[in-house]
């Protein structure tokens, strides 16, 4: 370390090096870091350096010695001895606490092991020897400590008597610590039955071995002693008392102990302790002192001792009767006092559980929480304000020419004093909060629950479960977590203040001491010198010399100065400059006072002003040494200096004041149960963590969720640094591994569930939500409160057992998996349901997308489209068989088309009553956890209620859903599959049937004359068509085929309609890339308008088709024209290429798109070619028309129509329309339309004829049981419907207006153009090099794509824009 007293030139050089280094350190402050992680934990410290103020050695003590005050050296000596004893004792405490017997693991020697006996014993001996040695060390330690402590007590007592003034505070506190340690050692030794067990086995092994070896007399003796030592209770306390009794009894120590009791009571009453341990040490030491002072002789009992103020002590004991002994062992004050004659006091014999309520409330965090919370918040606010105020003032001072505002130079008292005080108060608050937590825990351990108090607690729960697991109510756990969060937040805040404000503490302490020395102390010295109190003058003069700093290197001789002052009394009386002189007499420094220096100062002050000091007792005819005012001045500094050691090692004090590691430890209960580990459910940190994540209880505390995990850090720190126990650390680590996995799992689920519910709340029908919430009580609300998960999810370096954990990443991995699972479940459910499930699928996918969007704001997640593609198994660019589209096609072909009936009035499909095909085998629907659907059971019910409305039919809503779900990109796949299906039906079913029916048709079928009337005509037709009407398969299979084809047509028509709604948006979005401009009234002459229109002079196109034909990609062109710009900005994406991609991909869909139905009709027409001649019938002999010819297709359909216009004979029977729906007619008429026979059909149809005949009749009878009136009604309806259907066909695939087909060869539509030709951008539209061909390389198999994906209009078709056709 640099030392200014080093001499020579090397000293100067070294000082320069140091100064440079310090400058560099100052420069560090100029770096600013952005750590965007909300502070929810104790800050992770990769490196920690504890700047310890003192190592306890007090090496500089000789420098402050004074020959007239030997007592200080003696006391320092005693303190050092006691501290050394305490240090050793503590290591024994840790050894004992972490001690787990090995006896259970040692195999027992049985009789039949005769052969191995010797070896077994030898090994047992070897294993146990080191442990027994430790026990012996403990015994030896006890013997030596007891003697040492007793000797110190007696000596100190004598010194106290002779000097008349009490020993220093430090000595008393050192004694208290030793007493506390004795209590702990006694408790631990008595608790660990494994010590006895191990020793018993050791002894047995030893005695068996002795048969072979020579018995050692000493060792046997020692073992016997150890046996007694381990067997007897409270060995330390009893031994100490025994030794004291030998040395003169309680009377020989009572003065010192009375001082100790007073001092401890003072500290507790003034609350000048910091940590919980400080407080409990004092309380326990008080109890122990009473025990030492007590005597079995009733006249010397403690109750009779005048020097002990029992009332005061009892009041303190009653306020805090329970405290931890070590770890999970609790000590109650009563058990301590039961060993004294106070056992006759009624309170002492009270059993736990009978305390009054106020004590219970004082121990309960739940009841102290509001106060603590207010205090905590107020403190944080104050600290925050002060910090900024501090910086502001520091800047001002720097600007005003004072010391530069950095963090190394001393700070003037004006600034340092408030900061020092606020930090000290923070430390005290931290200690109080921690004490409250620890004391509640001790209370809980002392007051286990049982099944009568807590119904959740099972009858056979063991002690630890009763004390911890079932002992906290939900509200108590919440309060507990909040306390933890306060402790750790405060700990973080204070620990972070150490580096920037450490020098403030040093500056303040130096300034305070100097102000005192040169101010109050100097004045008191002057006054004492006047009164010629030599003893006091020496003491105070020495105190001044010990602490006073000076600007003069030779220091200040205060006594000389005082006499000087005497001489210049007259001068000084009027002078007001004295204060100024004092101010300038010492420099400002940021320097710490040393331990010995502080001890000397306090001991000197105490000996002078203490009311028990001989000089201060006063009396008759005797002045006190100091006036009460002067004593007050000294006392103020004495009390303030009490905190200097704590503040000088601020970092360590913060650690000590927030140590909650005890909450994890359970060695005592493990020992009781003879178990190695309890399940994680019993571990307090995990109980609290789980509580926070429990949605019913404390989700709002979610930001505190990491604090319970901090307990593991504390516990591990204790295992490593204090207990030094490898296996305990391993156990903590194992538990953390498990707990953390569970934590991440539970956290992810909670997050996922919460965000799912939020998405539900957003997506649920608003009107429904309003109505529901108005009518239902408040607990059924569908509004989800947003919980502050975000700050937890942004944790990227959470420190756990020295490992840095990226919570953000871990959670996002799980959430990602959850999302995948949710999407998978949605698709699975769709696959297990009929086609109307498309609504649920759409809703679920939207829901997941919304969830994903909300989550993406806080977590790094891959894009939802990627997740969906993966779940849909749709990663192939050319195959287009995702699971969704496959299932749509599957359902359409195998269930929907064959089984549904269409009604043109409602525009809906409904399921036919009778199915003509075998029912479909669908996989059973998965039954997922509620959160995988809509977030919760409640939301699932609401959504399912909404889907119920759409389950019974299939209509516009469903088609729109299909469209949104699949988009136009998948239309070709659907169309292709449907075309294939229709072709198969046509080739394999319809054609044979039609041929068969044709054979059944009469050669000629003239329409009968009007005179036959309706009845006559009906009967005529009936007879004429009898073979057809009675054809067995007609009403089943033939109609079924027609229905399937018809349903196909309707489905495509409705899909078209759905897509026309969505199309304009796509057009708008792609237009800029395609050079489409809205044909505005005034195209801007310079083309200045529009985001992309600036440099484009493409003529405004008349129609989208025309514009595409231009082949200009506007955006791409603009970008290409500014190529240097793009290159210079370093853009990776080539916008020009991108533009061409977009153009290529969308051009076909937009401009060249033809309706699905149109394409289907065209394709069907092509299929028809093979049989066209047959269905058109023979070439008419007159080359125009065979009027009576009945072998044409339309005749057959007329026969069919005649059949299904015939009403059922019984009233209950259903009409054909009811069974097959209107798809049947679509299916039949499409071929008439494609064959160009519409007009012939209109003219020659049998049913139509009957309608016309019926027009002349008023009364229609029955014929063959058939109600002819109904027949005509049905026929009329059919005709209306037929006309409508033909209109639909015309709209989608117009034919020339006149009747075609004079002959087959002249058919104008022989080859309807339907094969889409898709030309990639040719050399005329773009430079050849960058030509993009989206389906390059797939053309071999690309028929489907060529046909379906890119359906282009060929010349001559002149299709109007699809939307217009509707």
């Amino acid at each position, binding site marked *: *370390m*640099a*030392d*200014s*007293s080093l001499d020579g030139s090397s000293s100067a050089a070294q000082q320069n090096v140091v100064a440079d*280094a310090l400058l560099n*350190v100052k420069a*560090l402050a100029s*770096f600013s870091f*952005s*750590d965007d*992680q909300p502070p929810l934990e104790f*800050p*992770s*410290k990769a*490196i920690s*350096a504890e*700047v310890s103020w003192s190592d306890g050695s007090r090496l*500089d003590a000789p420098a402050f010695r004074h020959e007239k005050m030997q007592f200080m050296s003696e006391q320092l000596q005693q303190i050092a001895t006691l501290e050394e004893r305490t240090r050793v004792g503590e290591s024994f405490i840790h050894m004992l606490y972490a001690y787990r017997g090995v006896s259970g693991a040692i195999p027992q020697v049985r009789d039949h092991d005769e052969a191995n006996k010797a070896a077994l014993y030898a090994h047992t001996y070897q294993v146990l020897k080191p442990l027994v040695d430790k026990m012996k060390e403990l015994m030896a330690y006890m013997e030596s400590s007891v003697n040492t402590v007793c000797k110190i007590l007696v000596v100190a007592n004598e010194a106290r008597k002779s000097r008349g003034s009490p020993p220093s505070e430090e000595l008393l506190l050192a004694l208290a610590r030793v007493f506390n340690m004795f209590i702990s050692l006694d408790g631990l030794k008595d608790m660990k039955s494994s010590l006895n067990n191990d020793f018993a086995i050791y002894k047995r092994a030893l005695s068996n071995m002795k048969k072979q070896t020579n018995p050692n007399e000493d060792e046997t003796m020692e073992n016997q002693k150890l046996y007694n030592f381990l067997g007897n209770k409270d060995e330390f306390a009893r031994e100490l008392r025994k030794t004291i009794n030998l040395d003169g009894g309680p009377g020989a120590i009572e003065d010192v102990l009375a001082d100790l009791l007073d001092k401890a009571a003072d500290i507790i009453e003034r609350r000048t302790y910091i940590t919980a341990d400080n407080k409990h040490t004092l309380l326990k030491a008080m109890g122990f002192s009473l025990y030492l002072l007590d005597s079995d002789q009733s006249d010397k009992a403690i109750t009779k001792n005048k020097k002990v103020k029992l009332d005061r002590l009892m009041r303190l004991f009653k306020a805090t009767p329970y405290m931890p002994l070590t770890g999970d062992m609790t000590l109650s004050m009563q058990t301590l006092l039961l060993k004294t004659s106070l056992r006759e006091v009624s309170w002492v014999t009270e059993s736990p559980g009978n305390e009054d309520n106020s004590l219970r409330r004082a121990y309960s965090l739940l009841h102290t929480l509001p106060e603590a919370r207010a205090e905590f918040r107020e403190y944080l606010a104050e600290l925050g304000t002060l910090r900024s105020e501090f910086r502001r003032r520091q800047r001002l001072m720097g600007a005003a020419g004072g010391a530069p505002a950095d*963090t*190394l130079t001393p700070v003037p008292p004006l600034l340092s004093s408030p900061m020092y005080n606020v930090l000290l108060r923070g430390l005290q608050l931290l200690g109080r909060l921690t004490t409250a937590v620890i004391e509640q825990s001790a209370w809980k351990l002392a007051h286990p629950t049982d099944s009568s108090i807590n119904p959740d607690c099972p009858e056979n729960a063991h002690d630890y479960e009763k004390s911890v697991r079932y002992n906290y109510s939900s509200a108590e756990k919440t309060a507990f977590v909040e306390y933890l969060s306060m402790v750790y937040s405060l700990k973080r805040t204070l620990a972070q203040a*150490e*580096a*920037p404000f450490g*020098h403030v503490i040093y500056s303040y302490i*130096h300034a305070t001491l100097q102000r005192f020395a040169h101010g109050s102390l100097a004045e008191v010295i002057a006054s004492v010198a006047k009164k010629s109190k030599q003893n006091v003058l020496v003491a105070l*003069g*020495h105190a*001044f*010399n010990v602490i*006073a*700093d*000076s600007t003069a*290197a*030779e*220091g*200040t*001789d*205060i006594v000389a100065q005082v006499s000087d002052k005497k001489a210049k009394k007259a001068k000084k009386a009027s002078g007001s400059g004295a204060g100024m002189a004092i101010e300038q007499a010492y420099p400002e420094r*940021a320097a*710490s*006072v*040393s331990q010995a*220096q502080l001890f000397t100062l306090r001991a000197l002050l105490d000996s002078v002003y203490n009311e028990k000091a001989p000089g201060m007792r006063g009396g008759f005819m005797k002045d006190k040494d100091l006036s009460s005012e002067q004593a007050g001045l000294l006392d103020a500094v004495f009390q303030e200096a009490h905190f200097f050691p704590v503040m000088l090692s601020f*970092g360590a004090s913060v650690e000590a004041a927030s140590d909650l590691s005890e909450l994890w430890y359970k060695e005592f209960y493990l020992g009781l149960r003879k178990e190695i580990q309890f399940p994680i459910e019993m571990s307090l940190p995990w109980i609290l963590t789980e509580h926070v994540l429990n949605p019913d209880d404390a989700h709002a505390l979610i930001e505190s969720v990491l604090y319970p995990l901090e307990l593991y850090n504390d516990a591990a720190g204790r295992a490593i640094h204090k207990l030094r126990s490898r296996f305990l650390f391993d156990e903590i680590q194992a538990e953390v591994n498990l707990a953390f996995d569970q934590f991440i799992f539970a956290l992810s689920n909670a997050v996922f569930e919460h965000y799912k519910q939020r998405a539900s709340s957003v997506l649920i029908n608003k009107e429904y939500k309003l109505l529901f919430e108005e009518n239902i009580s408040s607990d059924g609300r569908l509004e989800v409160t947003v919980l502050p998960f975000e700050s937890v999810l942004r944790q990227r*370096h959470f420190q756990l057992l020295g490992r*840095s954990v*990226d919570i953000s*990443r871990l959670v*996002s991995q799980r959430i990602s998996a959850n999302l995948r699972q949710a999407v998978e479940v949605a698709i699975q459910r769709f696959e297990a349901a009929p086609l109307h499930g498309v609504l649920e699928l759409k809703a679920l996918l939207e829901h997941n997308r919304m969830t994903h969007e909300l989550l993406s704001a806080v977590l*790094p*997640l*891959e894009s939802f489209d*990627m997740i969906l*593609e*993966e779940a849909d198994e749709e990663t*192939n*660019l*050319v195959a287009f068989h995702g699971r969704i589209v496959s299932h749509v096609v599957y359902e359409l072909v195998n269930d929907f088309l064959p089984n549904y009936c269409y009604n043109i009035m409602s525009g809906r499909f409904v399921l036919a009553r009778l199915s003509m095909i075998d029912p479909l085998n669908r996989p059973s629907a998965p039954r997922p956890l509620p959160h995988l659907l809509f977030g919760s059971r409640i939301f699932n019910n609401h959504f399912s209620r909404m889907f119920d409305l759409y389950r019974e039919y299939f209509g516009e809503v469903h088609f729109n859903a299909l469209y949104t779900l699949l988009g136009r990109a998948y239309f070709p796949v659907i169309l292709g599959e449907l075309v294939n299906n229709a072709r198969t039906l046509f080739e394999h079913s319809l054609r044979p049937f039609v041929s068969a029916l044709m054979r059944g048709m009469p050669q000629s079928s003239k329409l009968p004359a009007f005179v036959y009337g309706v009845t006559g005509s009906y009967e005529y037709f009936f007879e004429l068509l009898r073979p057809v009407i009675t054809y067995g398969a007609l009403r089943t299979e033939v109609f079924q085929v027609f229905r399937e084809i018809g349903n196909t047509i309707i489905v495509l028509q409705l899909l078209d309609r759905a897509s026309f709604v969505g199309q304009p948006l796509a057009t708008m979005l792609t237009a800029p890339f395609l050079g489409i401009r809205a044909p505005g009234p005034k195209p801007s002459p310079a083309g200045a308008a529009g985001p992309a229109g600036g440099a484009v002079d493409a003529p405004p196109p008349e129609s989208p088709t025309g514009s595409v034909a231009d082949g200009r990609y506007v955006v791409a062109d603009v970008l290409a024209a500014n190529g240097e710009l793009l290159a210079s900005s370093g853009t990776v994406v080539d916008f020009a290429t991108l533009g061409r991609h977009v153009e290529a991909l969308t051009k076909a869909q937009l401009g060249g798109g033809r309706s699905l139905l149109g394409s289907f009709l065209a394709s069907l027409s092509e299929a028809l070619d093979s049989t066209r001649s047959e269905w058109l019938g023979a070439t008419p002999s007159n080359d125009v028309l065979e009027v009576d010819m009945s072998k044409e297709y339309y005749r057959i359909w007329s026969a069919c129509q005649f059949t299904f216009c015939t009403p059922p004979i019984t009233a209950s029977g259903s009409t054909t329309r009811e069974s097959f729906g209107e798809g049947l007619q679509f299916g039949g008429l499409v071929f008439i339309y494609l064959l160009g026979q519409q007009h012939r059909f209109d003219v020659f149809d049998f049913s139509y004829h009957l309608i016309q005949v019926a027009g002349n009749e008023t009364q229609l009878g029955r014929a063959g049981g058939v109600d002819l009136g109904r027949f005509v009604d049905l026929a009329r309806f059919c005709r209306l419907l037929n006309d409508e259907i033909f209109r639909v066909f015309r709209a989608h695939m117009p034919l020339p207006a006149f009747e075609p087909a004079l002959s087959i060869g002249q058919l104008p539509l022989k080859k309807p153009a339907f094969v889409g030709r898709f030309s990639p951008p040719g050399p005329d539209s773009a430079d050849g090099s960058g030509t993009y061909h989206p389906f390059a*390389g797939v053309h071999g198999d690309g028929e489907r794509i060529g046909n379906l994906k890119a359906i282009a209009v060929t010349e001559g078709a002149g299709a109007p824009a699809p939307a217009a056709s509707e």
Partner: protein
Amino acid sequence: MDNRTAVSNWGNAQSVDSLNIAIQKIIDFMNHFENHTRFQLSTVGDRLNLLEQEVHSLEQKLNSLKRD
């Protein structure tokens, strides 16, 4: 009787303490630096992960084209 020892003691204490404070500041700086880098690295790591996944998926798509 004077306090020469105390004065030089204060001087020495100041030198030692200024080093103590400086060490504390360096440690504080390094811990901040560590957190900062951890945070930044983790952010970059996430981005890389996402890009990697995307590339993987694109690669798969590309391969689907090559196969035929």
